[in-house]
């Protein structure tokens, strides 16, 4: 079972990570390696786009928890989008979704980010 991880910068300090395939005990380290450089003060928003993730086990959940915690520590935001039903089910079982901002689509997330950015600009003015 394989995992592929794609990282894109969607704007200044906004990173989108797209894990594809199986996030399990064999593959989670690969995702961690891709994430570590992003746990820096310059990261404002970290988004997991899970539209291509088919499977997650507790090893993968730990990476998600770790990412959420790391972003909190650098005053950034952690978000997820496009959870497949089987992935959502796992998050539901462990009651993790109340703690994570989750979007049904990237459009929905972009709208939210636009609002957030406007508020940020207004605060600075």
């Amino acid at each position: 079972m394989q995992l592929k991880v794609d990282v894109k910068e969607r704007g200044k300090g906004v990173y989108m990570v797209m894990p594809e395939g199986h996030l399990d005990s064999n593959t989670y380290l690969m995702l961690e390696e891709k994430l570590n450089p992003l746990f820096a003060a310059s990261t404002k928003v970290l988004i997991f786009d899970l539209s291509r993730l088919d499977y997650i086990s507790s090893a993968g959940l730990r990476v998600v928890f770790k990412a959420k915690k790391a972003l909190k520590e650098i005053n950034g935001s952690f978000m997820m989008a496009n959870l497949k039903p089987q992935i959502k089910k796992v998050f539901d079982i462990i009651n993790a979704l109340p703690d994570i901002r989750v979007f049904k689509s990237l459009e929905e997330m972009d709208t939210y980010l636009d609002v957030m950015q406007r508020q940020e600009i207004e605060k600075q003015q």
Partner: protein
Amino acid sequence: MSKIRLQAKIENLERLMQFVLACAKRQGFTQKRIQAIELATEEALVNIFTYAYPEHTGEVELRCKMDDETRFILEILDTGIPFNIHSISEPDLTENISNRKIGGLGIFLMRKMVDEVQYRRDEENNILTLIIHKVV
């Protein structure tokens, strides 16, 4: 009944998983049920890899079979330290995930994915049995 016996180490996870998935597929489970079997098996195996043999290496054996065509039965055997899965308490699911303790999550997921979990210690063996009903 089909079975496989390998060293209990993470490098063998993939082969052990392929064995279980092939068993489940032969029995005509839906993709959804196969994913549940997959997740439960991974969590059970990783637990054995991590805790069963603290001082030396050892083996793990998987046996799968159908029981009267309605129940998928997966037995996971190891000869490591006695480990009663039922003695593990559930993780605190009310705590914010940023502060949650890491332990116990895998076993909790394993339990939730299957219909029945049985444990027995038989001489040198820990025998963990996961039972999944074909029709939910």
